[in-house]
């Protein structure tokens, strides 16, 4: 101790600052605060309209207290079946298409031209939000669940292929190297060294995407792509808030079930 003190080393130390220039730092902070205040001030709030809408919101919420499962049960049941069919088929189709695209979009597996094509497909599938894609497909193939199936399959590719490709790129290269060194072919190397590393993530993501797809199936229904969303839209248009509440409660229930199920699956693997 005493020798250290005797050597006269400094007793204070500070982390090097991120901004070397203090003026620049405070100018940036002040700029951000001013912008935030101006932005908040520019948001117009129509208080009259708000109080009017409050009554309608109250009616909607009171509908939740008295949900009516019975009077529209036929429609609700048909919508549910459509939505679940849409979810299952689009998730399966999405996974089947995502895996080869993800292999092509992984820089460590694919030659550059294939990488470019597959990353392009992924980017295209991710550019537009589901609703916009749904409107496009409804215009193309007409109202109904087929448009919903196409929409959800496409957005599943955008989601799953991208995350899977990123995961493949992060796979441990030494395992790949070791399998290659045995004289294994490209496909065998993917099967042994890559698949075993990314499988838990693929399963987890697929389960997660399944419940996203169910939720989205309710949303895309509103723009005419069939399913429970279409039923919900009809109920709201007719001001049948009790039936709408019943539909929302069913959606919440199913989403929670999916969430619980995918949680269980993710816990089982690894």
């Amino acid at each position, binding site marked *: 101790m005493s020798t250290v003190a005797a050597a006269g080393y400094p007793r204070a130390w500070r982390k090097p600052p991120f901004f070397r220039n203090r003026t620049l730092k405070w100018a940036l902070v002040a700029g951000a605060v001013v912008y935030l205040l101006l932005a908040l001030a520019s948001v117009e709030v129509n208080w009259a309209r708000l109080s009017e809408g409050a009554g309608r919101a109250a009616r909607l919420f009171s509908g939740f207290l008295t949900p009516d499962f019975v009077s529209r049960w036929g429609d609700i049941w048909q919508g549910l079946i459509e939505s679940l069919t849409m979810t299952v088929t689009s998730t399966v189709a999405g996974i089947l298409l995502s895996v080869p695209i993800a292999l092509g979009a992984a820089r460590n597996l694919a030659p550059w031209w294939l990488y470019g094509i597959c990353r392009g497909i992924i980017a295209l599938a991710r550019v537009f939000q589901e609703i916009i894609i749904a409107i496009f497909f409804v215009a193309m193939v007409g109202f109904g669940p087929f448009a919903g199936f196409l929409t959800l399959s496409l957005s599943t590719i955008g989601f799953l292929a991208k995350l899977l490709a990123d995961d493949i790129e992060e796979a441990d290269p030494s*395992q790949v190297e*070791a399998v290659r060194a045995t004289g294994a072919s490209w496909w065998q190397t993917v*099967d042994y060294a890559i698949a*075993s590393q990314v*499988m838990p993530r693929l399963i987890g993501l697929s389960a997660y995407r399944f419940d996203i797809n169910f939720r989205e199936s309710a949303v895309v229904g509103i723009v005419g792509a069939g399913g429970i969303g279409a039923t919900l839209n009809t109920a709201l248009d007719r001001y049948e808030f009790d039936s709408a509440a019943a539909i929302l409660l069913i959606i919440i229930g199913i989403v929670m079930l999916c969430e619980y199920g995918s949680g269980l699956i993710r816990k089982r693997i690894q």
Partner: protein
Amino acid sequence: MLRIEGLVKKYRTGDAALRGVDLEVGKGEVIGLIGPSGAGKSTLIRCVNRLVEPSGGRIFLGDEELTAMSGGALRRARRRIGMIFQEYALVERLTVMENVLSGRLGYVGFWASYFRRFPPEDVERAFATLDRVGLIDHVDKRADALSGGQRQRVGIARALVQSPELLLIDEPTASLDPKTSRQVMRLLLELCQERGLAAIVNIHDVMLAQMFLPRIVGLRAGEVVYDGPADGLTPEVLTRIYGEEDWSKTGPQEDAEDRHPATPMPRVDEIAAEAP
């Protein structure tokens, strides 16, 4: 058996890892390759099985020129060259048996390997090899459930079921404790003798190299600066390989403490180049 002529490797960044290496390994001969980190030891052995693409020079395995091969011919040549890695490089989530059977991938078709339906001779060979390295009781365990020494023996078994003529061994003991290191080295040497295998062993540990390997090749900055018997490693020679240091104090004691950390992997050419 293995003949390397004027091997050069320049990475795309411009660093030269190997500057004209000549080396000959006889049938059944086991050599130790020593040298400081970054001398090009790992690059050298990866050029042999073309995990790293050489920039110049030629490599012959028997009469065949490895550097002239591509596609199926290269994969068939790789079957004859077993490789053993520093951090074992086992496929962690697969069972011990799957890891060992992956040594047969070059011999079976895709679907047979996909459904894990290997020919009975291959399965028998895998069991026999696991028994030889003392892991017959761990066949169905996942690779990540084993200890370091056990994993390295799985790695050895994987290389052996290839029925190779040559083993490339990259720092087999760098991740192991001193006692396990010696056991693994002894096992490797025994196996090479039993099967008449030639081997190149990259090794940091000069003591261990001298103890087990009769012929030592010293690499420095991508060039061979020593090639001779292990007892020829005088302080002058060590200085030529590693640079100035007081070599008289290298005893077994210090050696155990001064274990070299894991070396970074050389930049292996991506498998993308081999995509169908």
